[in-house]
């Protein structure tokens, strides 16, 4: 993780007058697993396509290994891509699909055979050589797509929501598989996804994007524990985001109480956003709590309960392993290191309040919305 392999400098891109990327600066290091994470339409796929050479940036530069490659066409770049819907060649069988890149390079057939065998072995596709892509399952097609992209031994592999079409169980398996392949081959992976869990569990570095801008770059733990603004805090996991002020370093005042915390460096009495993760709040008897509130909803989640607590009109989400009854009055206790303080941003006040939260609605509306927006993005790009 020493030398920078890909450098993006102030990349901007518009489609039909609509700005998709507004100034992207990004360094990607050798052998790194980088994930571009963000909601649909945030520009992550467009960024990937600019690196792959399928789109040209309107302004800004792309550097590869120190060389400016803005005008280099896709077929001359040392990157290969695993496409969103695999894009396997339907008229070729698995073997010929995987061998495609080597045949373009005009290698000898016996060398091709050795390398294809090796690649099929690594991706667990032995015995499928003669099958047509149309006769394979989604997971198998995915493996073919990965094998086909890796056989050229690229410096960088671009993956555009590669697991989006797979079911949950298969997705978990493929996540481990991808991580293993990345470790074995030592190839830099740039992975695009809207699934925050996937991003956190696989990546060395996560790049959170929204509205064509990079919000935060960091390790998964950094991103989760130290989000820079309300958008990141809300997008990565569940969070309660509360308006507060910093009277002095290591003190935060919100919800009518002054808490000890471990953050500092703000101006005196600066208005800030406070993030508290649902699992970091302890439920205690009212008299022992720093705050108190009334339970307005309880959802059983298997290994924990997700409860919504009304504290002076602001609804908190709390995860607890002890059952509490609806309408019960409880106390809340928050450790100093559970309080994360963020500067105010354009996203302040838009996220992190669970007053409109409904579990049922979330489940009903989510998958459809995601699919249609994804397609929109695909059409745009």
């Amino acid at each position, binding site marked *: 993780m020493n030398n920078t392999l890909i450098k993006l400098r102030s990349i901007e891109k518009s489609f039909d007058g609509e700005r998709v990327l507004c100034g992207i600066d990004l360094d990607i290091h050798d052998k790194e697993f980088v994930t571009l994470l963000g909601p649909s339409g945030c520009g992550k796929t467009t960024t990937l396509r600019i690196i792959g050479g399928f789109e040209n940036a309107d302004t800004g530069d792309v550097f590869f290994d120190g060389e400016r490659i803005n005008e280099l066409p896709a*077929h001359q770049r040392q990157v290969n891509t695993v496409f969103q819907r695999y*894009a396997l*060649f339907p008229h070729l069988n698995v073997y010929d699909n995987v061998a495609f*890149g080597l045949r*373009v390079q005009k290698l000898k057939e016996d060398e091709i055979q050795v390398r294809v065998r090796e690649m099929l072995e690594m991706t667990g596709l032995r015995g499928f050589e003669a099958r047509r892509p149309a006769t394979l399952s989604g997971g198998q097609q995915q493996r073919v797509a990965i094998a086909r*992209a890796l056989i*050229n031994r690229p410096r960088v592999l671009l993956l555009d929501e590669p697991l989006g079409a797979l079911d949950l169980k298969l997705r978990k398996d493929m996540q481990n598989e991808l991580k293993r392949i990345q470790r074995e081959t030592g190839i830099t992976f740039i992975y695009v996804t809207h699934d925050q869990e996937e991003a956190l569990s696989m990546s060395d570095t996560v790049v959170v994007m929204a509205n064509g801008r990079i919000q935060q770059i960091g390790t998964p733990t950094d991103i989760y524990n130290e989000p820079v603004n309300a958008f990141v805090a809300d997008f990565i996991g569940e969070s309660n985001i509360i308006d507060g002020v910093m009277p002095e370093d290591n003190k935060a005042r919100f919800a009518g109480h002054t808490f000890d915390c471990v953050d500092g460096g703000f101006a005196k009495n600066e208005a800030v956003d406070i993030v508290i993760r649902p699992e970091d709040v302890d439920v205690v008897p009212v008299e022992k709590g720093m705050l108190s509130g009334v339970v307005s909803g309880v959802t059983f989640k298997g290994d924990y309960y997700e409860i919504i607590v009304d504290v002076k009109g602001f609804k908190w989400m709390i995860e607890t392993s002890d059952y509490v009854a609806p309408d019960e009055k409880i106390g809340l206790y928050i450790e100093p290191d559970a309080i994360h303080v963020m500067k105010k941003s354009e996203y302040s006040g838009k996220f992190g309040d669970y007053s409109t939260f409904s579990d049922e609605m979330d489940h009903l509306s989510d998958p459809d919305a995601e699919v249609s927006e994804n397609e929109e993005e695909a059409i745009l790009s």
Partner: protein
Amino acid sequence: MKTLSRVYMWVIFALLYAPILVLVIFSFNEGGSLSSYTGFSFRWYGELFRDSVALQSLKNSLFLAVSSAALATLIGTFAALGLDRMRNQYLKGTVNSVTNIPMMNPDIVTGVSMMLLFVAVAGILGISDILGRWTMLIAHTTFSLPYVILSVLPKFRQFDPSLREAAMDLGCTPAGAFFKVELPHVLPGVISGFIMGFTLSLDDFVISHFVSSPDFQTLPLYIYNQTAHNVKYSMYALCTLIIVTILALLLLVNFAGGIGDRSKRRKEATK
């Protein structure tokens, strides 16, 4: 009801194919008469193959059908490619409609206008007799063209553009990606376009009538000239051969189209 529909079907078939059947049967008739069948024989086929003018016309027809279909396929495939890539929707619609006009235009209008064009060009260039082999080739290529476009264009539309990107991603130049990935996909359409052009050229009479000259006759023109005065029975044999050829080609077109459809269906089934 069921028997009625069956009877109806056979009546329709009889009306459609009885004349052809009669022609085929009498092409094998020993005697030279339409009123009595005197016995099976290849006499008229023998006579046909001794008729040097008929054989020359057959050669002309085949030359014309193959070369005009090949030309139309080449031009039409690239025209369809261009139409598919056109960004401007209005322009695309306009060009599409314009290419379709020759299909709807009556043959006689196409024929007359082509003849006028050729004669006018000949006048400008100072050539005395321009009509013949090459004007026929131009005319046949022209009227086959929209049919080729019609059969190739949908194949381009169905093509997933990310496959082209995948090919380029793996190191193909844009031209390489076209020939390695896109062409195999549209090939069934190209083949059926070629066969369609071939059959259209083979059986065209009206347009050929206007743009040919006596020294370059195709089979339909020859048959017309023979039968206009008094019927020669060898023409029955010739027509039978043409019918068999056309039938074989039609089956081939369906077969070529069927291959494309089947692979598409298989793909959809796994989705």
